[in-house]
Structures are given as C-alpha cells and as structure tokens.
C-alpha cells in the first residue's frame, strides 16, 4: 500500500498555534504568581513549556516561547528588560527543537533514548545556556545587588530550578499529549511546517 504523503507548508494554523502557545505560557506564568508564594518565584513552571513548544512546533514554538515569556514578564518588568531576558528562552526552545529533529527522537518520549535526549538536550544544556544569559541580563539592568549574589546565589538557583522544573512539567506533558498533537495539522515536523 502506498504511503499517504501530506504536503507540509506553513499556514494560518501555525500563526494560531504560536498565539495559543504564547498565551498559555503567559497565563501559566501569571498563575505561578497567583498560586505559589512569592519567595519561591524561582520555581517557574513555564521553563518546562519552552522545550515542549520547540519540540512540537519548531520555529513557531521558539517564537511562542519568546513572546509568551516576554508577556508574562511584563507583570513585573519593563518591556525592555522582559524582551532582553526572554532571549534566554529562545535557547531553551531552540536547543531541544534542534536535538529532537537531529537525533530523530519521538516527542512522546516512547523509549529511554528519547528520555535521555530530553534530559540532556532539553533540560541540562538549555538550562545552562539560560543560566548564563538570564541572570547576566538581570545584573546589567541593576536587579542583582552585586557579583557575589550573581555567581553564588542567582546563577546556581536559576540553573537548579530550571533543571528540576523542566522534566517535572515537560515530560508529563509530552507523554500525555504528544500523540494527539502529532496527529494534528499544527504539529511541525521540520522547522516551519
């Protein structure tokens, strides 16, 4: 039986999916403010969603992660800082998106290999890159009292919260909903479609 080939090209569905994904990221960011005490605000569940967005929706997911995080940061930061800080989220979506396509991993994390790829390429490496960018931008905007606080408190805290939260949020979401997403028109197999 001949295989049914679906022509993939970017369309309205991808614009909508970017808006939906960025809206969800922003909403979950705001909800974190509301349901979790402020002193644990370093627990930022949306970090797990950046990887998911990149894996499912490629370039559209990366854009969604950037816009969503910028919008959710507007609840506390000026737009310049929100936009600058959100650069770190580009890498948190881009690196997993690249790795899952490069190593042909299943977004549903069906095998242990997929799980390992997620842990390394969607969790540890993007977490490290994000740690280098995000707190440094905070420092240059004057949000961090001094370099000691940056290197010994903020950066380790940022990295460990990322590394803990990403699998806790991302893995259940990927396992539970990837099959449905992959069957939909919105799923991006390559980068744009």
């Amino acid at each position: 039986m001949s295989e049914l080939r679906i022509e993939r090209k970017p369309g309205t569905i991808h614009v909508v999916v970017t808006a939906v994904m960025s809206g969800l990221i922003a909403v979950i960011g705001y909800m974190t403010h509301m349901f979790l005490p402020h002193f644990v605000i370093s627990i930022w569940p949306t970090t797990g969603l950046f990887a998911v967005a990149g894996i499912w929706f490629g370039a559209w997911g990366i854009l969604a992660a950037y816009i969503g995080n910028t919008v959710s940061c507007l609840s506390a930061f000026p737009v310049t800082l929100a936009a600058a800080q959100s650069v770190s989220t580009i890498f948190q979506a881009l690196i997993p998106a690249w790795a899952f396509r490069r190593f042909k991993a299943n977004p549903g994390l069906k095998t242990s290999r997929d799980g390992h790829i997620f842990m390394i390429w969607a969790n540890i490496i993007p977490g490290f890159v994000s740690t280098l960018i995000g707190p440094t931008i905070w420092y240059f905007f004057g949000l961090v009292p001094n370099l000691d606080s940056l290197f010994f408190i903020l950066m380790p805290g940022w990295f460990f919260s990322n590394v803990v939260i990403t699998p806790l949020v991302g893995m259940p979401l990927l396992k539970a909903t990837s099959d449905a997403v992959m069957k939909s028109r919105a799923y991006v197999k390559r980068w744009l479609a």
Partner: protein
Amino acid sequence: MSELGHHGRGGEGVAPGRRAFMWYAPSWTRFSSLSPLTRVAIGIFFNVASYLVPFSLGIVLLTSVLILMHLSGVKWKTMWFVWVGNAMLLASFLVSWGVLGSYEQNMHVIFEWWLIRITLENLLFGLMFWVRMMSALFGTLFILTVCTDADLLVSLRLIHIPHFLSMIVAFTFRGMQLFFDDMFAIVEAQKSRGLDLNKLSLLQKFKWFVALIVPLFVLEFRKMEETANAAVSRG
C-alpha cells in the same frame, strides 16, 4: 453614541464595562479618543522610563501612572490580586536587598546577626527597585486597561510590525483572557470534587499545578483548530 460603559456614568441599567484582562474597566475611557498607538506609547513610556530615572522621579512616575489608571475609570476592587502581588514583591525585595546587599563602612546598620547585616541604604535601594517595578507594571496595566486587542493590533501595524507577528501578539492578549477562564473552570471543577488548596503543602500544590497544565493544553488545542478554521474562513 451609546452610553453603555461610558466613564463616570454608572448606575442601574448601565453595563459594567469591558473586561480588561483580569479586571474591569469602562468600555469607553477618557483615553479612548486618542489613537491606539498613543495609548500604547503612554504605557510604554512609564514602563521604560521607570528604569532610567532617579528614585525621586520614580515616585513621581509611579504616582502619575496611578492617577492615569484612576482616570481611565478602572475598577480597582477587581485588581485585588495586583495589590497582593505588589505587597509580596515589596517584602521579597526588602529581604533580598537587605540581606544580600553589599556592605560599606559608612552605611547605617539597623540590624546585625551572624553574617546578616541589614543596612538602611540597602533597604532604601530595595524600595527604589520596587517603585521602579511598580511604575513598569502599572505602565503595562494601563495599556491593557485602555486598549483592546484590536487596538494593540492597530498600533503594531502602525509601527510596521509584520502582519503575522502583530496577529500573534494580538491573539495572545485576546487568548489569555480565555485561557484564564478555562483554567479557572478546571480549578472550580476540581474544587467541586473536593480539592482544598489551603490544605495542600507547597510540594502538593506544585504537583497539582503541573497536573492542571495537561487538561488545559488538551482543552486549548481542541479549540485551536476551530480558531484557525474561523480565521481562514474570514480571510
């Protein structure tokens, strides 16, 4: 012109106004006659300038933006969560700057214990950052209060942001209200089945929060196809 929701015309038979994100504001505000781009520019001004001016001017900026918010006729009572968040933010800023701030000989120490040394200067610095953040925050809230998502779309188009990108941003702001409604619907459904958030520990609360994300995603992805089809059918 319809009087529905016009500022300063409350009373019986008058619609409560427009829902602006998570709070309520009149459908027609004092600023509605300005172009959408001007309204956005006013908010962005407070949002950005707050980080560029000295402390004393920061207080002036914060006061000004609060006055503008009040003039827009926003229903302050519906913004309770903003005040709760602000109070927590102030506390966390005072603690983090007070405890972690650098120490110099000429600073005024007001509390000292073991390695912790809280100085008046560091506390004032924390307060200064809180004031800056508040100006930035209320600048953004001002935009959300006086602009609809259609206004945002128009203003983004006016500054020549590509059409698909301005659509995404406008859709995002529009969608956020709907997502909040859906999320609260899920929370209410869980509460009706016996969920008591007050009895949950922090770890349990976090687990519950993660479990909340999955049904929300499923719900929104179902709606997504319908939205895309509607967008295509409207050209």
